[in-house]
């Protein structure tokens, strides 16, 4: 998958602004970014259901503008919003979706039990989907995306709304897919999900890509090794700001705390202690993808 200068505009609004990226076969590629960054718009263009405003795109070695149906035939899609067929049962949802792909009836029927198993919905097979919980519907949509044994799966916030067990189940199944050589593209707001799953990811902000790399590279580049989180007594929120100036390699001011980045947490801790700033608590932890995300996209929320 190759995108060059990929652009999507809705009237005046630019949702995706000339982004470049490549996804290699068999890779798990992630899109991170705050609400409205343009992740879904990008996924929809890749899924050949949204015409490009500009740039070029190659998906599975084809051009979505001309070979949309051929591309979609080899894709599995989990859209951000569940699109289950509310008028049909769980089984019929899987069945008719397979039929949309032109799969022979017998072949679809054979595939249904394993997908029900995958979604852990075997005992709900004959229920109407209207009576399923939100998480069950989500699992059904994920299972449904696999009915055509796709070579690439697009997952737009796949585990939003799932309980922790179901999330781990989905991660498990996604790992299994990658072992079979399936390429995965996913967007997520969960940093642990991105760290768990993604070989490489891009961080999007305001319609552009602001960083790209493996989770480890991104953490090393943008967050450093260790992190000190400093909280203040009630009413003292920003009081320590100037006082903490110069400590660590960088500081991030959040609504309820200041995050200080550096390579040696012990040194940071003692510097804060000696600064004379009144502090309620300090917490040392390893730098994570969340720190990268906050650094690259977080400022806007505070201002």
């Amino acid at each position: 998958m190759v995108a060059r200068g990929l652009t999507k505009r809705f009237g005046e609004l630019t949702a995706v602004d000339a982004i470049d990226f490549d996804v290699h076969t068999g890779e798990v590629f992630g899109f991170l970014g705050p609400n409205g960054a343009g992740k879904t718009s990008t996924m929809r263009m890749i899924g050949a259901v949204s015409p490009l405003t500009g740039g070029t795109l190659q998906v599975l070695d084809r051009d979505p503008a001309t070979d949309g149906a051929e591309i979609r035939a080899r894709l599995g899609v989990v859209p951000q919003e569940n699109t289950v067929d509310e008028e049909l049962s769980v089984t019929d949802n899987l069945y008719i979706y397979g039929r949309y792909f032109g799969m022979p009836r017998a072949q679809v029927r054979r595939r249904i039990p394993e997908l029900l198993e995958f979604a852990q919905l075997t005992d709900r097979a004959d229920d109407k989907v209207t009576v399923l919980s939100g998480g069950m519907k989500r699992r059904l949509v994920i299972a449904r995306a696999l009915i055509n044994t796709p070579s690439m799966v697009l997952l737009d916030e796949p585990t939003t709304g799932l309980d922790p067990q179901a999330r781990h189940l989905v991660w498990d199944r996604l790992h299994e897919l990658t072992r079979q050589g399936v390429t995965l593209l996913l967007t997520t707001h969960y940093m642990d999900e991105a760290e768990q799953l993604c070989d490489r990811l891009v961080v999007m902000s305001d319609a552009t890509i602001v960083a790209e790399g493996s989770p480890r590279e991104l953490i090393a580049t943008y967050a450093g090794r260790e992190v000190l989180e400093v909280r203040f007594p009630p009413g003292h929120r920003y009081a320590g700001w100037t006082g903490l100036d110069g400590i660590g390699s960088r500081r991030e001011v959040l609504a309820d705390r200041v995050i200080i980045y550096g390579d040696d947490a012990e040194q940071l801790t003692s510097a804060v202690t000696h600064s004379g700033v009144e502090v309620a608590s300090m917490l040392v932890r390893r730098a994570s993808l969340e720190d990268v995300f906050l650094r690259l996209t977080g400022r806007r929320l505070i201002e």
Partner: protein
Amino acid sequence: MLTGQLIAAVTTRGSGASRVIERDLLVTRNNLMVFVSGFVEPVFYLFAIDVGLGRLVGDVTGPDGGPVSYAAFAAPALLAASAMNGAVYESTFGIFFKMRWGKLYDAMLATPLTPTDVALGEIGWSQLRGLAYACAFMTVMVVMGLVASPWAVLAIPAAILMGFAFGAVGMAVATFMRSWVDLDMVNLALLPLFLFSATFYPLDVYPRSLQMLTQLSPLYHGVALIRSLTLGTIGPGLLLHVAFLAAMAVVGGIVASRRLHEQLLP
């Protein structure tokens, strides 16, 4: 089961539109009562007119100036009105519901299906249903002795033409609708069409100016066409009605397909 055979028959050709129809058949199999009620309603009207109103009214003036029984006069209008209602509800309420609320088409379009498949499939399904209703209603008319001419056979394709005309315009209208409130406007537009399109009394009871207005009503053209066919009063004037309905189908179809493409693939 019959539906199962129908599914098999319709889908062996395997084109995209037929898979959309297969989905609608699957839904219908679960909601047979809704399907049956679409047929029963006009038949109930017909019974009510035949045994009740018809007795009171006696004969009325037919399209050729001769007398016809009131039931034979009103029955083709009921057929036309049910063709209109079926097509309009399916294309407005049905499409709006599936597009905005159910997100059904988003799911379909993530597969190899195209907007054209979806549009053709939905129209095809609506017409298959219309065909079943029209055949059933014609059978009832024949049994009740309300059909005066073999030309009546053409009333069935005429009802299908009406289905295309109203379905296409309805679908075009549906793409402009934003909320359920807009759907009430559809009801508001259908009622006067139903009542004042020379459905229940001959056109010549109106004053001249109102007659002209009635002739702008699309339902009027459907009613006049089907009525002439079942009563066997055939003339070149019928081609005018056909042309009016065909024009509706073409214009509605062009607008609908353009708008659907924009809306389904933003």
